[in-house]
């Protein structure tokens, strides 16, 4: 497959080259957006292995969809949206709740008193939330989606989205602040 020419590194050039199968351009686009895609997918997935599978699916969709990308939205927003859809439509795997619960209990003891540890604990607690609560909390509180959008994405109602958010926040509060998983 052809390689990107030197200097063809503007976003439009990368899109054009990647959409024709230029793997160097694809790699550059991946490097630019990999962390953002992984972050949203990992938080929605709640576990590493699932997140990696969903990320691969997301990137295949992104590269396949570049040909149809018309630039009406920012590329980063479009990639983000594709990643969210890939994660929400992703194939389910058996959730390993037990293992996650054990990991969270350990981190509660070990990392309560420093801010980096607290962030890790919060990430772990979000991962541990039941699927509906986790997705709603991630989409609403972290990604800034409105309840109307979330209800469309998850195929629920706005009131269900609100209810899931209330329960998710209450659970996190109990786990993080009160330390009672």
């Amino acid at each position: 497959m052809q390689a990107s020419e030197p200097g063809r590194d503007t976003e439009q050039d990368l899109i054009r080259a990647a959409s024709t199968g230029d793997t160097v351009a694809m790699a550059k686009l991946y490097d630019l957006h990999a962390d953002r895609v992984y972050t949203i997918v990992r938080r929605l997935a709640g576990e590493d292995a699932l997140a990696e599978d969903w990320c691969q699916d997301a990137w295949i969709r992104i590269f396949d969809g570049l040909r149809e990308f018309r630039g009406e939205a920012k590329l980063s927003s479009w990639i983000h949206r594709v990643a969210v859809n890939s994660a929400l439509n992703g194939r389910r795997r058996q959730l390993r709740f037990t293992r996650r619960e054990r990991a969270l209990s350990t981190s509660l003891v070990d990392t309560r008193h420093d801010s980096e540890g607290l962030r890790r604990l919060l990430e772990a607690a979000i991962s541990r939330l039941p699927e509906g609560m986790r997705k709603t909390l991630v989409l609403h509180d972290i990604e800034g989606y409105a309840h109307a959008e979330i209800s469309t994405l998850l195929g629920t109602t706005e009131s269900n989205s609100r209810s899931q958010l209330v329960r998710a926040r209450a659970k996190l509060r109990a786990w993080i602040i009160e330390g009672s998983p």
Partner: protein
Amino acid sequence: MIERHLSEDRLVLLLDEEGTADERAHLAVCEQCRNQLEVYVRLGRMIVQLPALSAPAHLRSQVLERVQSRQVRRASLPKRSMILLQAAAALLIFAAGVATAPLFRQGPDVASPSGSVQSSEAWLTTTAGDPAARLALLDAVLLTAKAARQRAPADPGIRTIHERVLAEQQRAVSALLATYGTVRWF
């Protein structure tokens, strides 16, 4: 003003909503509810400020390998298309042969095909025309389909065509036997 403490559900939603005048009045005088709300406010701030995660290094190679393997598969598609085209061409030749067979056939008249614009599928399964001519053409198509299958043994489309033509050839043999009693090769 609300006398009772605000429910946890209401406190959680007050992160996003202004709340009613009664709720605001209650919060103004109730330290317990204010503290509870503050806990949620701090938690919400922590959630919003969570830093981006780093994609694992091995994910990059997995993604790019998967992209490249898809490209390789796509690049091999023309070869498969050529084989399918070859099989389709053979079917068309067969169809044309069946259509013109009555012109060259010797022996009792047989009704000509019902129209000149029939699909290959219709020609493949037709019982019209000279059974001997049909069998000869099916043999030719079968040779092409067999060769295509040897080149692409895993291709389900070619396998289906080969099996269909083989089945039709066997039916044609039976039909010929029923018509003439013995198979008469040209």
